[in-house]
């Protein structure tokens, strides 16, 4: 019992805390049993909550990055399963704890897990009757806004020359192509080799590039430090500006719906894309690809495999791959491919320039590489544009590896890496697409041709935008709506615009239920809420506590049905829904509240003896007890107080009737704020207690 004394409890706290710390240190991975065990320790030692919280926070900050996530899971498990007082203690330092862990991890999956974790903290504990979020909004919101700010900051960093490897907060590791760039030494032997061939075609360029003596534009581009690339022509800047504007749009969307994973994914993709573009401005078709991808992303791609946005992909990117022409070395210089140029209206230089670069040496090493049986690096499983970032990195990695493997013939290797994609026409378009922009950019012609390319691209873009570009849709929706009078004659003629109004004009489809949304901002916001709703519903349904024991509600009576405003719960925000339902509802006792006295988070209703917990009211900016009223100087449930008042006014039989009617009314008050499973019981108890109180008073 000594441990119970004030001194003892102190030492007890440190004992338990150090035990807790030891167990924490053993936690190396996401081990459910260990986490549950730690949660139980925390549950049984709530009197030492402060010490345990401190230990946990310190551990999360101090431990190795790989162990931070399991430790965060411990934190999560404790706050969700034990709740107060841990939420209070851990909530205080949550910002630094979380941000520190987030910042020290640059593994995307871990970050995603953390994002998800943060997401759940904004919501009530699944299955709990407590409707309050795990952490109060004022704890979680700073973290969210910091994450958004940080992502914006990261984006701005991307716009600056990336001469130094980034430190600190980054969403992914340094793009591998950098290593490749710096790893390529301008080997003299190689230059000679290239001079032999390259000078035949581009002698004028030889003079201009004294630094590396790179005779071919490709070599120059590949080996040039990124700084020079950044001073590339303006048209690349146009693309970059497009990307930036897309990013800012996505960020707005992200800010509006921070839990929409799709927006997050898109954002991170486009950030990756931007980084890649910054690092290596694409040319020619690859630039076009980037444009298309940006346009497609802007159009609000369907989240899952979506082959439609880039229907030209295979053509586009097989076109610049001159593989067939490369086969006969004797045929230099090669004519450019007229078919591609015609179909895409690209200026001849864009096509013809890369070809003369080719040398027999390059070809032979290319063939050697291919003969080595290296597999295509494009990840075939990545089927769609969303995989763009990682796929391109992999691709570039491969390029880089090839370069490292054969440094004396790196151009050839680059070509090989590039050609690999082109030489495997079996790959479907979506597979091939991700790898195009960057690998192609490696071998692309000098930047000077990009201007004309971009112009030709712009002439192509409008037709491409028919695949669901949002820009003209609102106009279409209004303009194309046919006016059809009530007449038998009007029924027969097929009106494709009606089909369009149901499908194409709402291109933003939910992959879960097929619901469609407009491609404007409102539609996107609706879809974000809708996906959120799917997520919440699935989470709640997957929870074993809520999955069982559901029952059908009673039907509503006429008055309630008449007053009911139907809304779609899947696209309506909670606020709007509550506003809709409460607008017509009179202020009942359950809407009453009492401001919580300082430091009081729990209270026992003096009438029904059930526990009451304070909650944070956004409206009042204060902690309150909801459904509460002062009764005899104590805080009690407002509903209980009302029952007491009612019953003390009535005769005994009247009280019984009131209790009964209360119980029946409870069934119809399903959607009230009060947890319904407790409602009926509380009603009955309230009435009984009321009778008791009346007797006491009498």
């Amino acid at each position, binding site marked *: 019992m000594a441990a119970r004394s004030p001194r003892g409890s102190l030492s007890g706290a440190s004992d338990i805390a150090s035990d807790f710390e030891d167990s924490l240190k053993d936690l190396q991975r996401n081990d459910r049993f260990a986490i549950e065990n730690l949660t139980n320790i925390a549950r049984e030692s709530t009197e030492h909550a402060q010490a345990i919280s401190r230990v946990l926070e310190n551990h999360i900050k101090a431990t190795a990055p790989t162990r931070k996530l399991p430790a965060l899971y411990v934190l999560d498990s404790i706050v969700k399963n034990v709740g107060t007082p841990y939420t209070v203690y851990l909530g205080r330092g949550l910002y630094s704890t979380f941000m520190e862990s987030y910042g020290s991890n640059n593994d995307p999956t871990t970050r995603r897990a953390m994002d998800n974790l943060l997401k759940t903290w904004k919501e009530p504990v699944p299955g709990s009757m407590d409707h309050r979020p795990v952490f109060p909004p004022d704890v979680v919101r700073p973290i969210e806004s910091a994450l958004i700010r940080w992502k914006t900051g990261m984006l701005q960093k991307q716009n600056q020359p990336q001469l130094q490897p980034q430190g600190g907060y980054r969403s992914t590791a340094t793009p591998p192509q950098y290593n490749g760039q710096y790893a390529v030494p301008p080997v003299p032997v190689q230059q000679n080799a290239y001079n032999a061939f390259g000078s035949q075609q581009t002698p004028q360029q030889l003079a201009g590039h004294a630094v590396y003596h790179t005779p071919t534009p490709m070599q120059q581009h590949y080996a040039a430090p990124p700084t020079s690339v950044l001073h590339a022509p303006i048209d690349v800047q146009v693309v970059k500006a497009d990307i930036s504007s897309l990013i800012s749009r996505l960020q707005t969307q992200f800010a509006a719906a921070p839990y929409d994973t799709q927006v997050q994914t898109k954002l991170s993709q486009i950030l990756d894309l931007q980084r890649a573009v910054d690092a290596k401005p694409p040319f020619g078709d690859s630039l076009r690809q980037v444009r298309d991808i940006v346009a497609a992303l802007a159009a609000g791609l369907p989240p899952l495999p979506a082959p439609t946005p880039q229907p030209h992909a295979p053509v586009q990117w097989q076109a610049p791959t001159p593989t067939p022409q490369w086969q006969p070395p004797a045929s230099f210089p090669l004519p450019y491919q007229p078919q591609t140029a015609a179909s895409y209206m690209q200026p001849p230089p864009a096509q013809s320039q890369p070809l003369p670069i080719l040398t027999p040496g390059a070809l032979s090493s290319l063939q050697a590489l291919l003969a080595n049986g290296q597999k295509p690096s494009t990840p075939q499983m990545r089927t769609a544009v969303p995989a763009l970032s990682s796929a391109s990195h992999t691709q570039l990695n491969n390029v880089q590896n090839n370069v490292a493997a054969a440094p004396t013939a790196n151009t050839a290797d680059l070509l090989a890496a590039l050609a690999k994609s082109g030489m495997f026409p079996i790959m479907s378009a979506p597979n091939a697409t991700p790898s195009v922009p960057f690998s192609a950019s490696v071998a692309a012609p000098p930047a000077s041709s990009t201007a004309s390319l971009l112009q030709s691209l712009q002439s192509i873009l409008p037709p491409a935008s028919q695949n669901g570009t949002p820009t003209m849709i609102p106009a279409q929706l209004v303009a194309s709506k046919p006016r059809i009078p009530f007449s038998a004659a009007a029924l027969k003629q097929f009106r494709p615009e009606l089909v369009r109004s149901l499908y194409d004009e709402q291109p933003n489809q939910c992959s879960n*239920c097929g619901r469609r949304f407009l491609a404007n901002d409102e539609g996107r916001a609706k879809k974000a809420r809708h996906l959120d709703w799917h997520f919440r519903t699935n989470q709640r349904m997957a929870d074993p506590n809520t999955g069982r024991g559901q029952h059908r509600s009673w039907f509503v009576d006429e008055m309630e049905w008449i007053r009911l405003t139907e809304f779609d719960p899947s696209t309506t925000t909670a606020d709007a829904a509550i506003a809709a339902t409460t607008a017509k509802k009179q202020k009942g006792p359950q809407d009453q509240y009492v401001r919580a006295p300082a430091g009081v988070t729990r209270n026992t209703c003096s009438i029904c003896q059930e526990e009451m917990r304070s909650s944070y009211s956004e409206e009042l900016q204060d902690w309150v007890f909801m459904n509460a009223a002062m009764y005899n100087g104590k805080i009690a449930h407002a509903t209980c107080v009302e029952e007491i008042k009612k019953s003390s006014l009535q005769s005994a039989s009247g009280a019984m009737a009131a209790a009964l009617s209360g119980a029946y009314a409870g069934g119809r008050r399903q959607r009230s704020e009060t947890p319904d499973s407790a409602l009926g019981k509380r009603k009955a108890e309230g009435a009984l207690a009321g009778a008791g109180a009346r007797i006491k008073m009498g």
Partner: protein
Amino acid sequence: MALPGLSLPGLGLQPSATPVYGGAAPPPVEQIARREDLPPQSEWRFEAAFGQQYNIRLLSGQAELFGVELAPKQTYNLSGCKGAIFTWQGCQLEITGDAESEYSAKETEYAVEWLNLHGMLETARDEAQPDGGPRVLVVGPDHAGKSSLVRSVAAWAVKAGRTPTVVNLDPREGMLAPPGSLTAAAVASQLDVENGYGIPPISGPTVTPIQTPLIYSYPYASSSEKPAVYKALLTRMALSVTNKLEEDATAKQSGIIIDTPGSLNDPKSNYDILNHIVSEFNINLILSIGSEKLLNDLTRRFSMGKAPGESVPVLRISRPGGTVERDAVYMKQLRMSQLRQYFFGNAKEPLNPHSHSINFGELGIYRAKSSSDASNTSTGFGADDDDYTPNFGTTGSDGDFEKVTPSAAMTGSLIAIKFCPASSDGDAVRDSAVMGFLYVAEVDEARKKMRFLAPHPQRWGDRALVWGSWPEVVADLLT
């Protein structure tokens, strides 16, 4: 044939029931997924029996079932459904399981008409007068595609952002409720491929969209059985619906779509009930499917020779080529399944019904007299005549409802809980909306106790219960 939710024991899916459909459904040995490519504007018609696994997945393209678009790559369980998956743009489907019949069809002119009808209604909604949007009555014989039309048009309207009020007046097939009920619901959420309008509210989270219906009980199979009761309910329902539309501008602009049973197509009564509906709901468009005679009669009555302000346009809508007769066995299974779903939920949202055992003295049960009672030829339900209180119905209810003491004859039947108190008079009992339905599990006449299966854990209190002869007794809901 393990089919969650429907494979519960006692659904009445005796193996003997299935061969009625031509016996062409051998037990599925292996479930091989097969693919069907549908060209634009064609459809895949299928009749899947209850208890037969029948899944469809949209692989590519776009397709819809009764106007509800299928999500790509999602598997839909369409067991017990007779329908057609239509594609405007062409699609590829993957089909698993066996159906009694399935084929692709290109005679789909009806779909163009239906879609144009949607366009018409949209025009009417855009140009809605102060008295509201289009109020459409769909009439025609049974199995002509009325319900499919109503569902498609409602689904498209919701997709266009409207909130149409859908009214079902067919007591043989419930909408959002067991059979024997008439339903009105303002549909705001997108319809569901598998569950149509969705499900009525439950206590927990749902994947299926929730609709909150207003339910009236009409415990007879046909409108012609008790036309007076039917008309009184129509009046009451029209009042509620009109009131609701006054409260909600969006719903008012979106209008009403009314589905009717084929029994309204009754020249003998001079289309008495149809007239009643048209005037009560202030109908401004009548659609006639599949009956030239009805079309002519209605045109003569409502459209021709009337002043422009009074005439109601009557349009003929093509009957889909794929409509099939839903025979008695299938309809019985459908009702059974609706009843079961009311208490037990569906596969995605299983529910726990609750058992209540109540003394006879606490119950106020009314029997909805069948039409045969009037001629005193009733045999099955006449046992309670000694409790008949002729003075009970004070205002012209002429004894459509009589108060009865519980009897063993009630076992297995469905009882409607009305919102009105148990001591209400006959008209109130008749007109009151339904709070819920009870299934009579057991009547212990010796101990004077009745055991109910109720959807809700709480008792319903002092409310009138109505026991009718429809839907038919289900002996084994609980076993």
